[in-house]
């Protein structure tokens, strides 16, 4: 499925002294099967933006199109199943006595029969390497485990698009790299992923395209290499190093990811006397 935002503007608490314009005029498409990275600082509108993708927030102005049709006329429940949204700190919404029951919440809402629910719960937990937690209480898990269970709770609906809002915030490096490899596996299975982060390196690692948000406006959209080399101030450290070296050593090329930079540096060092 293809999601398109057309001139979306969003104002929180309009008409009160607490009014905040979180999105000014955002137009952005999410193509089927891609990993779209959304980056921006605190208060840039990232979270507000992604909540429009399944209409948890309705735009103050502008439209959200799903496969070319206005999402407002679509069935809300169905839209939310097709676009799975994992909030920031999703572990705060865990509530059931066991992990298995918590993950089963969403598929149960879909009205599936018990066997199908069990199958899905097991499948998703296994995909996330968390099946061994099934009988535990979600409140007794570590931060990384809770995060995986919470993501499983959304994935169990079988969404076509998975939106992850700051999925790596507060995770240790190990849990973080596991999450990034999960995104790779989901993409390989044909899922569209929207990955929100303020960490440039992370986004460079997973994204096919990058959208840079600033002050509620899109500053740049495109493949990471294009966005990062067009304005190095928006690029991760590795890209800056590569860009600086690229002038002197053409062998460095235009790496975007950390690993590419390392191998390019290896080549340069091998070539140097």
């Amino acid at each position: 499925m293809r999601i398109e935002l057309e001139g979306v503007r969003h104002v929180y608490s309009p008409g009160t002294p607490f009014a905040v314009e979180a999105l000014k005029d955002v137009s952005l498409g999410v193509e089927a099967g891609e990993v779209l990275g959304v980056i921006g600082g605190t208060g840039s509108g990232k979270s507000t933006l992604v909540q429009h993708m399944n209409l948890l927030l309705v735009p103050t102005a502008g439209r959200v199109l799903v496969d070319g049709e206005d999402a407002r006329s679509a069935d809300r429940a169905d839209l939310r199943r097709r676009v799975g949204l994992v909030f920031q700190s999703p572990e705060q919404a865990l509530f059931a006595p066991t992990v298995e029951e918590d993950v089963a919440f969403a598929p149960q809402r879909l009205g599936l029969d018990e066997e199908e629910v069990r199958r899905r719960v097991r499948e998703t937990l296994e995909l996330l390497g968390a099946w061994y937690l099934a009988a535990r209480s979600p409140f007794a898990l570590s931060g990384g485990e809770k995060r995986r269970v919470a993501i499983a709770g959304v994935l169990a609906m079988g969404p076509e698009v998975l939106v992850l809002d700051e999925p790596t915030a507060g995770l240790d490096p190990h849990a973080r790299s596991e999450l990034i490899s999960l995104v790779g596996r989901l993409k390989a299975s044909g899922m569209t992923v929207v990955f929100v982060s303020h960490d440039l390196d992370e986004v460079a690692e997973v994204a096919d395209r990058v959208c840079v948000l600033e002050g509620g406006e899109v500053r740049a959209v495109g493949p990471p290499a294009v966005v990062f080399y067009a304005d190095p101030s928006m690029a991760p450290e590795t890209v800056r190093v590569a860009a600086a070296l690229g002038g002197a050593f053409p062998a460095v090329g235009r790496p975007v990811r950390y690993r590419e930079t390392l191998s390019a540096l290896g080549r340069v060092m091998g070539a140097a006397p």
Partner: protein
Amino acid sequence: MTFARGVGQFYPVESPLHALDPRAKVVATAVFVVGLFFVDSAVGFLAAGAITVALVAASRVPLRAFLGLLKPVVFIVALTFLFQVLFLREGPTIFAWGFLQVHEGGLRLGLLLAARILILVTAAGLLTATTAPVALADGMEDLLSPLKRIRFPAHEVAMMMTIALRFIPTLGEEAEKISRAQAARGADFDSGGLVRRARALVPILIPLTVGAFRRADELAEAMESRGYRGGVGRVRYRELRFRARDAVALILTFLAAGAAVLL
């Protein structure tokens, strides 16, 4: 779904009412509310109502905020009114239809009670809308401090009040966040009967409670790590000052309450 937004919340604009000393406002509200219980004539209620409306206008808080405040009590008001009208059989009959009888005494008392509740809630809302929570708690602490002599923990009570007031919007926001996260998992809060709706709240209430305890723990630790040891020897960053206009406001309130009672 919106939780606890705007209801009883401080509304930060500048107005003569916002500028008053919180102690004056607390005492004035108390006097007004107590006075209201002695009023039992239509003229008295008209006067009290007119004063309230004038104060609401002077507070520069949009009328919408007050209407939001009154929304939850409309049901109680309607119920009280109906009970009085239908079951109090005093005075001449105005209207009779089968077993339904409306008497003048019932109608009168129903209207007075309804007016009393509406004015009361508005007056209380006026206090919280025009007084910052911290100022309100400081005011309460000062007013309660004479009781310290009989070992009443005035500071602790005020601190608990400040924290409670401070966390109402925070918990409201959190409830909204959690309800959105559950909505993203297919939760539906707006359909089905009463029982189904109540059950739909479980996935919100459990994480909210867990979160509240976590926050309380964190806050206690943060306060202790900054050296908080209760009220003994504690000074204030903002000292309250009781000015002439506060005295004037208080005197006016006493006069108005007295007049409303006598009318």
